[in-house]
């Protein structure tokens, strides 16, 4: 029973974690991409459509990652090359993604999808109580954990990670040192897009295995909030994602038990929790000041 609950929490947390880790890298490079929701929903529809037409869920995942990265390039071109306002452009990406995905997905509404099956290792998966939790989940769960650890290592233990953080903290100085600010930011934005696409594929290939319009249902925005909540630290993103996973699974269980609270108010809990958490974290002004990438959201035009 406990194992089952922990697994469902992991299933709710994984898409948030993947998308938030991607956005964390983007923001560490000094770019605020509010288009996570749009890239995620594009990933969801692409993953579903490709998996269904080719019969291979892995091809679906692959396509979702590619489409997520390509879609984020639109944002990158506008904000990095044309120096448009990042907030407005991110919103535009979300609106465009929601619109396009609705159009692409129309043919797939109501069709049964293909599930990315959970892994099975004889012996290990069969261990009582913990076997399925550690050795029997869907493959993307393991990807999400590896991604988190990998990004943490990259950002704080490698030279390239240091370069990326320096671009996010002071793009002027980084540029003066001969670092290609725009190039690094393009790569970061595409990484964020790929992650959001992967998170979307998780939604339509693992979480529900069908296509529903707007199926990301605000998860892209919650991922953005998680990055702030985690004060731009990968391991704290992991903790935050599981906290949110627990809240959303908790409210689902409460709905199933029928404890007399209207289901809509329970469904609002994850969104309300996001607000509460954001307020609590931002009350501590010093903590946020220290960790926020100093160039976050600022336009950069190299002087020549």
């Amino acid at each position: 029973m406990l194992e089952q609950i922990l697994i469902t929490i992991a299933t709710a947390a994984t898409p948030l974690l993947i998308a938030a880790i991607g956005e964390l890298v983007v923001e560490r490079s000094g770019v605020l991409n509010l288009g996570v929701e749009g890239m995620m929903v594009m990933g969801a529809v692409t993953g579903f459509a490709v998996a269904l037409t080719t019969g291979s869920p892995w091809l679906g995942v692959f396509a979702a990652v590619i489409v997520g990265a390509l879609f984020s390039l639109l944002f990158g071109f506008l904000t990095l090359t044309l120096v448009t306002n990042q907030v407005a452009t991110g919103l535009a990406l979300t609106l465009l993604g929601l619109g396009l995905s609705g159009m692409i997905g129309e043919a797939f509404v109501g069709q049964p999808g293909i599930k990315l099956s959970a892994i099975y290792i004889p012996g290990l998966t069969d261990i009582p109580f913990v076997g399925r939790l550690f050795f029997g989940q869907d493959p993307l769960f393991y990807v999400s954990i590896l991604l988190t650890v990998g990004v943490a290592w990259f950002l704080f233990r490698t030279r390239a990670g240091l370069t990326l953080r320096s671009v996010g903290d002071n793009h002027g100085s980084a540029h003066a040192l001969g670092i290609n600010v725009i190039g690094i930011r393009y790569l970061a934005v595409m990484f964020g897009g790929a992650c959001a696409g992967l998170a979307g594929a998780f939604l339509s290939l693992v979480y529900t295995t069908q296509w529903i319009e707007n199926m990301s249902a605000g998860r892209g925005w919650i991922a953005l909030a998680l990055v702030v909540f985690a004060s731009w630290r990968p391991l704290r993103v992991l903790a935050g994602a599981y906290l949110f996973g627990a809240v959303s699974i908790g409210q689902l269980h409460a709905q199933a038990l029928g404890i007399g609270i209207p289901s809509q108010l329970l469904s609002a809990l994850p969104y309300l929790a996001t607000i509460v958490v954001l307020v609590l974290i931002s009350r501590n002004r010093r903590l946020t000041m220290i960790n926020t990438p100093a160039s976050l959201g600022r336009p950069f035009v190299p002087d020549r």
Partner: protein
Amino acid sequence: MRIELVRRPQHSALFSALSPFIALGLTLVAGAIMFSLLGKNPVDALYYYFIDPLTGIWDPGNRWQLHELAIKAAPLILIAVGLSVCYLSNNWNIGAEGQFIIGAVVGSFIPVVFPGWHSWIVLPLMLLLGMLGGAAYAAIPAFFKVKFNTNEILTSLMLVYVAQLFNDWLVRGIWRNPEGMSFPGTIRFSEWAILPQVWPESGRAHWGFVFALVAAVVVWFMLSKTLKGFEVKVLGQSPRAGRFAGFSSGKVVFFAFLLSGALAGLAGISEVAGPIEHLNEKISIGYGFTAIIVAFLGRLNPLGIVAAGIILALTYLGGESAQIAIGVSDKAVRAFQGMLLFFVLACDTLIHYRVRIAGAPAAKAAETKAGEATQGA
């Protein structure tokens, strides 16, 4: 080949005026490509999108379509005018959809809870309650921003989902019409609670459109002719300069959010007291989000927003007629609107920068020469 931007010494007045039109033109081209990819004749599709809803201008038989245009444009303009004040002052309220819904809910209180109250005062009270409701809901992210420095983008957006769920609970629960055949929704409002139509002879456009025009003119005046407007713009462009001038940024945060919340709330109650005539679970077709596009297409100028609101309303109506006439999915409308915002933002770059394609040898040579010339001077 590389694209380089060269900052203009002053922003270009020519491109300030032209950029929305260039963006519209590019959107039409991209739209034509999109429709051909969908296997539709692009000329037909664009005709149904942008011309067919306007045939009422010369054909009295189709005049009702202009009324429908005004009905769709009213909430877009009302919301976008409020958002322009927010965005000019650097307050990123993206939760207008939620403020719209809460305005509609709070304004519906009287006709739903006191359906027997028949008096001329009902309607003004409803409109007032709608504005108060929207403003109060917008005050939440404003309060958190001023008090705790909480990111208003995320809080205002989260509140949209909360508002949608709250409204859903009301119209399926305690406010549900017992005779509604299990459809979610409240009872139909009494005639005292319905916004009158402006010209009932030719169509059903209601006073919401008039509110939108009045709001646009008043806010335009406020922004361009009063100290308050100056304060809004200075604090948006340079908070530091604003503080030196003695302007309180906290007060302006509240001002912008309360104003835009009130206008979104007014749009919400006008929508339910106007064309819908009762509260249900799908009162908005994304007006709060489309209004963001309207605000930018109107270049954050309330008068420009009136024109932009009509154009975006056209896409809603055109989407319907294109669906009926040639079977283009109604889902294309939102993709179309999203593209428009992209092009608007991209074209705004031309106002502040000259775009230069660098890398071609000839251009390089000219550049060096120009560089030497300026150094010599």
